[in-house]
């Protein structure tokens, strides 16, 4: 490009080494390269996003540990003292636990059950909701620095994922204390990072979509607030899909990608009887992986096809 004087390429693209060659619909294939080239930036932004949440607070990075710790006791209290005993729930769930006699503290188990679902959901919901502002909230960067803008939603996703990892360590502590450890065998835990990656892929794809939508429709953020709450209740976090009354609806739940993810997490984290050599155990993982990759492709496509207009619209 430096010789010959042809001026075909829009060189603003290259200013900071953001070199794109593929059309938006295929851009997902060069995403790994771009992210790898800017890995320092991704790392720094994710770290900053994480730090920024706790910056200025006295306990700082202890908060992602304290928060789930308190949450657990709240669940335990609410579901053991305030709500009546959930016989129907346990009847279905305890079957999956195998040896029922080990789990006499029903309410404790219920709290663990909620906890296992809420960890992933919180990270997902928070990342998507926050990423509605990923572009509009960083207007200054988008307008004033040539910058691979796809890094920003990713950084936010990584930050919430880190908090989920903190939370999971607290969760495993409660499993241990409650005598439920090793519900997941150590080998099962090896599947857990795979789920984290798949969750990241799906969350990132969706984040790219909402972040882009927000640029053109500022109501997106508010709509999301409602939708994410609604979605949460449609996902088996506070209820179990195994209870008798819901058996006729399982086919509908299948349409919810997060249903599969939460099922997979529970298979890894709290269902000791889960047989990882069976198709049944892997099915939610594979389904979610498929949906996740599809979402990523869609997100990158949408984002890249609108990216050039960001600076003009914010």
């Amino acid at each position, binding site marked *: *490009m*430096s*010789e*010959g*004087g*042809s*001026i*075909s*390429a*829009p*060189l*603003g*693209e*290259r*200013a*900071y*080494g*953001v070199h794109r060659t593929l059309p938006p619909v295929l851009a997902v294939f060069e995403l790994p390269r771009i992210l790898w080239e800017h890995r*320092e*930036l991704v*790392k*720094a932004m994710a770290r*900053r996003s994480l*730090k*920024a949440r706790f*910056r*200025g607070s006295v306990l700082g990075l202890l908060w992602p540990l304290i928060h789930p710790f308190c949450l657990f006791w709240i669940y335990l209290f609410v579901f053991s003292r305030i709500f009546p005993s959930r016989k129907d729930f346990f009847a279905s769930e305890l079957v999956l636990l195998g040896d029922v006699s080990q789990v006499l503290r029903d309410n404790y188990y219920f709290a663990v059950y909620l906890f296992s679902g809420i960890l992933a959901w919180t990270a997902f919901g928070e990342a998507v909701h926050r990423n509605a502002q990923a572009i509009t909230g960083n207007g*200054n*960067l*988008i*307008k*004033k*620095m*040539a*910058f691979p803008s796809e890094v920003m939603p990713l950084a936010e996703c990584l930050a919430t994922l880190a908090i989920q990892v903190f939370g999971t360590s607290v969760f495993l502590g409660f499993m241990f204390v409650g005598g439920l450890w090793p519900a997941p065998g150590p080998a099962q835990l090896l599947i857990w990072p795979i789920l984290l990656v798949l969750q990241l892929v799906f969350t990132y794809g969706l984040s790219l979509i909402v972040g882009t939508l927000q640029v*053109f*429709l*500022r109501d997106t953020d508010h709509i999301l607030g409602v939708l994410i709450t609604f979605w949460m209740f449609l996902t088996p976090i506070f209820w179990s899909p195994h209870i008798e009354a819901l058996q006729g609806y399982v086919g509908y739940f299948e349409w919810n990608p997060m249903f599969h993810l939460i099922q997979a997490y529970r298979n890894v984290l709290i269902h000791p009887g889960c047989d990882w050599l069976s198709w049944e155990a892997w099915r939610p993982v594979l389904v979610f992986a498929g949906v996740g990759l599809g979402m990523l492709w869609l997100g990158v496509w949408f984002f890249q096809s609108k990216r*050039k*207009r960001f*600076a*003009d619209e914010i």
Partner: protein
Amino acid sequence: MNHAIEVRGLSKKYKSYPTPGHRILEALSLGQRSFHREHWALRDVDFDVAKGSALGIIGANGAGKSTLMKILSGTTFQTSGTFACHGRVSSMLELGAGFHAEFSGRENLIMNGIMMGYSRREMLEKFDEIWEFSELGAFIEEPLRTYSSGMAMRLGFSVAVAVDPEILIIDEIFAVGDMHFQKKCIDKIYEFRERGKTILFCSHSLYDIRQLCDQALWVRDGRIARHGDATLVTNEYAAFERALDIDAKAVVEGDLPAAPKGAKEQHPRITEVRVYRPGSEEECRECSPGEALDVAVSYENPDPSRYPIHIGIGFLRSDQTLCIANSTQFDGVAVPGESGTAVLHIPRLQLLSGTFVVFCVILDGPGIHRYDNRMAKQDLVVLSRERNLGLFAQDHRWKIEVAREVGPIS
């Protein structure tokens, strides 16, 4: 291939919608209806910047300068046209664009560097150098929210100039810190120049443009109004802006005390004012310093015995500065007769670039009362072809004496 930047037919269109709802309506109509207004911020802009040269960009607010800078730095995208930058570009569109108030100066400094494409390790290596340049001292460890705006800018500038680009795009960022730091900034930019970097520099300070740039580009309403030697273009731009700004004619009216009323009919009056080059009949609209110029004032004075008169001719810059005035009274020249023409001959015009109102007055004998006044029909535009600054040319020459080195006494 000597061009660092080549721009061809660059255009940028913005759409503006009356309300956000109209955007949705337009999207939903699938191209059937249109609810936006179009605004062309840039229209068919062509220019080249030679390698190692500096191009200044000037123009009024909203003329399209910033849009041009943003497209060239890659933060926004052209609607049509192409451009090429041959070499690594670094742009300073805004200092400290990525700063976060809760983080310390150190953290922001490193983060900003990473955003510009450096690795963390590189930034850690450069840290001391940048810190020293910023002169922030111990404040570097304090969160940015405790900084004054000047300090934040200093930090931003220090990071921005730590880069080693081949092409530097700077958008009006010199209002940085105190005088001392501003000087440092300018020096730093000069240093880039001397190292043979290509610079694209947008500023409202015509002085800085003239000093720093070889060429200037005047952008007006999204188009290039003039592109050429920095001194010429800035002068022309300045003249144009002044003419727009101020209605100087209103000022002249109130300048001198008016003659007593009631005697209007017999008053001496000015019938015509003409500005022309000697030997030419044509009104002179534009001229250059050093040219000869005549100003002719035709007058009528029905009763010269009762009203002895004097004639004054002045040049008023459109920002209301009286640049020079000559009067027959000061020079001891009589203006007799019932009518006539007084010609002020200027063998060498000493005025430098600007737009000037030529105005004439008829005064009474002692030069106190004004009987009549009149402006030349057109303002006189003086365009300087040489590099100079200020209002007037003056005869001058330089003499440099090099101090002799004093050896040790013993």
